[in-house]
């Protein structure tokens, strides 16, 4: 075939002419190669240095932050109370999206908004407008903290085997989101996280540096050879806090607080069942806090929710006064002090009616941020405040005083609203148990007795006679029972909470010894509990040098000086545990990300306050209070407990505002827990009844003691059993004995525990419904029925419409008899009573 063609063309081979032209062509090609080589050389020679620098300068050395995971907060059983879960920010690069004539833009927006589960900060049209308006932007977060489930499809489209090659200019950034599986449970203790990773309030703030961890970084740098290298420094995750709290106990406590709030909601004034409620449960033998709850609370997952918040605005604004946020109710009829706790410094003499020395009280009122006397409106004799006389319309009163110290420059309505909102939120975020100071009232009495016994000034065999009033330092100071208790033994003085007897004891002890022991009990000092914001009371206690006999007299039954709840209960723990003053604490252990213990916080005895003998005596005396005296209603069926009631009239006196409390321990023969319940201004016509606190305490203990495997020692009456059955607390009937009833009961308690575990195991899943549901069910079951029954049994005490308040004393009037009711015991007292002074 080849031959044939060669023959035909006469060109059998590639001829010389062609070879010549091939050679020419090859030379041209070679020349071209050489020319290009020269060009390469020239580029290097002429621009090499410039280009080298150009290359380095356009490298990004930007480091990428690898966020650290914030440590968890768990209870003593490992139930997670605060967790951080990985979430994703969606970021866009406008420059890339605008490149190639915007060919990626439409597709990107289409893909982005096809993700139904993602919540964007922009609407579709806004986002498009942003991208077109900012063509140079390389980084913009368009959706914050989206869950993995929400972004998983988008993640697959951006990277992964099924990626969408046309999707450019979008990426995901990892970060963490703090969530609280139990929403509002122990909110004041746990605190929350604001900003990126900054703890606010509670454990989150106190242990912020422990929890926060160290962010990692991925960054580029030039090495010695001017080569860019990238290095990753991994994030160190934060430590986990293991607390002494018990979610189940905490739930029980909060359930009953809620029940109280619900029962007394809007009863006498608009609002919750009390201005504040605080409950602390501690283990007296190591200072561990098992539960700490205060009301009002808030949802940790939404701490800035302003629903139901009461704002107080200066009067120059149209909506001046207290406004309640986002609720249908008209909220202008509340006590000013109910809302935003705006501190108003009151002239000292106004607030002093029990002690006209004034100097200490000036400090007390002016410095205290407590709910006690800070918002005083001064309706004393000296008051010239025209609005002061009306209790039901205190708004004007608050306004008048506030206007007096209004700021120089006028605020806009928005500013005033924001300021009022922040103030109200701060008040809500505060932990009443540690942040607020108040006069303890009669719960001080065991301390006074312990002081006397320990110092030898009292023997315990004294006898007292109470005539209803005692004159000290020129002041007539009344007993709660104005007719007098008559002759009393040492124990009966406590059982009946007789002020006169305690004034005698105070006198016997003397102010030096009294103040020495007060200091020993840590009054005026911080307990240094591991929570942020513990109030300092050093200016709210008496100074030995200026203390008068009157001061000593009123101090002996808990008036005239301020304490915090945590001070009281910590001191009381030492009274009942043999005299050991443990530093109260919540965190028991700090473990790292891998679960290894970094620090164990052991019980720490700070001092010995009293001897074992004194302690035993106090336990015995307090047990008598519950068995025989004012604390009867605090006793849960089947248990022998001890404690002391308190009914402290707040400043200003004679306004009917009380802080009622009960401080107790259980069981009496070996105190294993100490509980302290404070109800600040119960929302009832007649606040002066410690019953509110004792009943709340009993309700809590009825469930908590069986849960904590503290066995019953006492016989239960038929009535008690019937009552427990009615409350569906069968487990509390036969605690300690494994019976079907108990199992049923444990189920009730564990019912919450189980939902707790459900939370823990399913932590990736959206939380909320379960625990909330549990909480609501808890607040509605049994307890309400129980309270209603109580009402029926004792209508005279609880039926609000009939109750009137005696103008002169602030004591309630029994509608059936017209008798004044003793605020301490709730029993009628006879005869006229005059002011203390």
């Amino acid at each position, binding site marked *: 075939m080849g031959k044939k063609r060669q023959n035909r063309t006469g060109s059998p081979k590639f001829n010389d002419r062609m070879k010549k032209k091939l050679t020419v*062509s090859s030379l041209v090609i070679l020349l071209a190669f050489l020319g290009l080589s020269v060009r390469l050389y020239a580029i290097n020679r002429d621009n*090499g240095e410039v280009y080298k620098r150009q290359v380095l300068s356009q490298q990004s050395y930007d480091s990428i932050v690898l966020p650290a995971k914030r440590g968890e907060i768990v209870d003593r059983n490992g139930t997670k109370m605060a967790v951080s879960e990985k979430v994703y920010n969606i970021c866009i690069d406008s420059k890339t999206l605008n490149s190639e004539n915007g060919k990626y833009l439409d597709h990107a927006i289409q893909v982005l908004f096809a993700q139904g589960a993602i919540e964007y900060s922009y609407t579709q049209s806004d986002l498009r407008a942003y991208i077109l308006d900012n063509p140079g932007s390389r980084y913009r977060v368009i959706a914050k903290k989206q869950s993995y489930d929400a972004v998983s499809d988008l993640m697959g489209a951006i990277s992964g085997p099924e990626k969408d090659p046309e999707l450019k200019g979008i990426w995901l950034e990892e970060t963490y989101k703090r969530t609280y599986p139990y929403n509002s449970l122990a909110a004041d203790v746990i605190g929350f996280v604001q900003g990126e990773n900054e703890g606010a309030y509670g454990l989150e703030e106190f242990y912020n540096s422990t929890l926060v961890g160290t962010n990692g970084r991925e960054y580029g740098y030039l090495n010695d050879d001017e080569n860019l290298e990238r290095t990753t420094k991994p994030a160190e995750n934060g430590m986990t806090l293991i607390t002494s709290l018990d979610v189940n106990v905490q739930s029980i406590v909060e359930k009953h607080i809620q029940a109280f709030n619900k029962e007394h909601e809007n009863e006498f004034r608009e609002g919750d069942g009390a201005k504040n409620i605080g409950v602390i449960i501690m283990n007296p033998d190591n200072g561990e806090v098992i539960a700490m709850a205060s009301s009002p609370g808030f949802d940790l997952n939404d701490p800035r929710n302003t629903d139901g918040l009461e704002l107080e605005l200066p009067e120059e604004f149209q909506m001046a006064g207290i406004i309640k946020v986002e609720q249908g109710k008209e909220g202008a009829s509340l006590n000013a002090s109910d809302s935003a706790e705006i501190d108003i410094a009151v002239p000292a003499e106004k607030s002093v009616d029990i002690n006209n020395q004034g100097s200490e009280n000036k400090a007390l009122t002016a410095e205290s941020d407590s709910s006690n006397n800070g918002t005083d409106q001064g309706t004393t004799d000296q008051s010239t405040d025209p609005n002061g006389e009306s209790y039901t319309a205190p708004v004007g009163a608050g306004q008048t005083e506030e206007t007096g110290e209004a700021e120089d420059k006028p605020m806009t309505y928005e500013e005033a609203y924001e300021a009022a909102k922040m103030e109200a939120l701060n008040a809500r975020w505060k932990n009443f148990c540690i942040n607020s100071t108040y006069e303890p009232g009669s719960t001080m009495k065991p301390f006074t007795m312990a002081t006397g016994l320990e110092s030898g000034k009292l023997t315990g065999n004294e006898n007292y006679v109470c005539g209803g009033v005692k004159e000290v330092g020129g002041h007539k100071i009344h007993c709660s029972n104005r007719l007098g208790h008559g002759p009393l033994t040492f124990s009966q003085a406590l059982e009946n909470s007789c002020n006169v007897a305690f004034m005698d004891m105070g006198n016997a002890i003397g102010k030096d010894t009294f103040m020495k022991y007060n200091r020993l009990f840590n009054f005026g000092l911080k307990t240094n509990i591991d929570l942020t914001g513990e109030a300092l009371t050093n200016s709210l206690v008496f100074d030995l040098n200026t203390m008068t006999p009157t001061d000593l007299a009123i101090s002996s039954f808990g008036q005239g000086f301020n304490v915090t709840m945590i001070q009281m209960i910590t001191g009381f723990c030492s009274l009942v545990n043999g005299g050991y003053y443990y530093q109260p604490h919540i965190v028991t252990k700090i473990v790292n990300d891998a679960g290894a213990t970094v620090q164990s916080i052991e019980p720490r005895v700070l001092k010995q306050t009293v001897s074992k003998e004194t302690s035993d005596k106090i336990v015995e005396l307090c047990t008598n209070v519950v068995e025989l005296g004012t604390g009867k209603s605090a006793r849960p069926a089947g248990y022998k407990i001890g404690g002391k009631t308190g009914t402290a009239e707040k400043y200003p006196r004679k306004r009917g505002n009380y802080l009622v409390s009960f401080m107790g321990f259980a069981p009496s023969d070996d105190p294993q827990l100490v509980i302290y319940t404070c109800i600040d201004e119960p929302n009832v016509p007649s606040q002066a009844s410690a019953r509110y606190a004792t009943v709340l305490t009993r309700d809590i203990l009825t469930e908590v003691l069986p849960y904590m495997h503290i066995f019953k020692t006492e016989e239960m009456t038929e009535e008690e059993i019937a009552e427990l059955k009615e409350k569906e607390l069968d487990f509390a009937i036969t605690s300690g004995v494994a019976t079907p009833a108990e199992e049923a009961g444990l189920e009730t308690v564990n019912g919450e525990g189980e939902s707790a575990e459900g939370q823990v195991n399913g932590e990736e899943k959206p939380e909320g419904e379960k625990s909330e549901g549990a909480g609501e069910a808890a607040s509605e079951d049994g307890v309400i029925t129980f309270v209603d029954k109580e009402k029926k049994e004792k209508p005279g005490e609880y039926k609000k419409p009939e109750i009137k308040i005696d103008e002169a004393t602030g004591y309630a009037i029994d509608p059936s008899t017209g008798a004044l009711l003793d605020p301490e015991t709730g029993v009628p007292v006879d005869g006229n009573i005059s002011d203390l002074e």
Partner: protein
Amino acid sequence: MKGQKTLFDFTLLFVIIFLLCFGLVMLYSVSSYDANINYNDSAYFLKRQLVSTLVGVFFMTVTIFIDYHILERVAKWAYIGSCVLILLVLSPLGYEVNGARRWLNLGMSLQPAEVAKVGVIIYFAYLICDLGRNIYSKRGLIKIGGGVGLISAMILIITDNLSSAIIVFGIVFMMVFIATPNYRIYFGVAAGLLAIAALFVILVKNGVLTSEMSYRFARIEAWLDPEAYASGKSFQTLQALYAIGSGGVFGKGLGQSLQKLGYIPEAQNDMIFSVICEELGLFGATIVIFMFIVMIWRFFVIANNAEDEFGAMLVIGVMAHISIQVILNIAVVTNTIPNTGITLPFISYGGSAVVFLLIEMGLVLNVARSIKLKT
């Protein structure tokens, strides 16, 4: 003929293998960053190219051992087949990549322009031999001019691929130039084409033709003043220049390029030579150019010694193809000419290209095998 020693060009084979291996190594170095980001697999491009290379080596081996004279009989079909494939791009089988419709989906993806290059070499080698001295006749001019004009126009218009059209035209131009006696006419044609190109450049420079009319004019603008369009149309060219300039004599070392880290767009395609310069410096670039020179030298030797004109013309076609493509690619990378989008043979990423290049190599080695050595 039997028993007579024939040439097997081991030098050429070595150069081919060297370039293939070197190409794969460089491809991995250049593409791994991008591949990792976009495909979560740093070897994504390497794996695909390796498969194509193995397919190409198989076809090359087959081609070496099938007598190339058979091609004379099928030459017309090679041309017609190429045209059909180009037309098929318009059918639903065609698909777009990066906005250009140049590919066919035939189970595996195929770029008809790459097929056309081989087709044109075979057909015009046959046609030139067939016409012989009649090449200057009217019939010859129509056949040659019409043939190359038709397929170039199809490549340009249907696949919107100027660079392949230029290469096809260049291959035929060089083959005809060598096959015919005189020089003047070719210099005239070359000068004319250069003049047209210059005219375009001048018109673009004076703003008569603007980037709005065609992206090709935009490329000319970018070529004339790359710094002015640094973040836009000359971004790729400029980044390639930075890469070349920052490489120095011995480069930053294999794998050490910074420019491949997202700065040179699609560095594994047209701009791979710039990364070679950056990583291996002038030294590495010179070795690559040297290997291509050795390859062309072998083509020269084989063509000169080919047993017949058909074989010689086949080799000349391949030689034209390789040299034009290498020269244009390096010229683009060094911003010596405007950006046209030409890949570097054996080294740039591209499946169809490597398969058909290796088939061409098979042809050349086949022609070489038929050379009888004088003993």
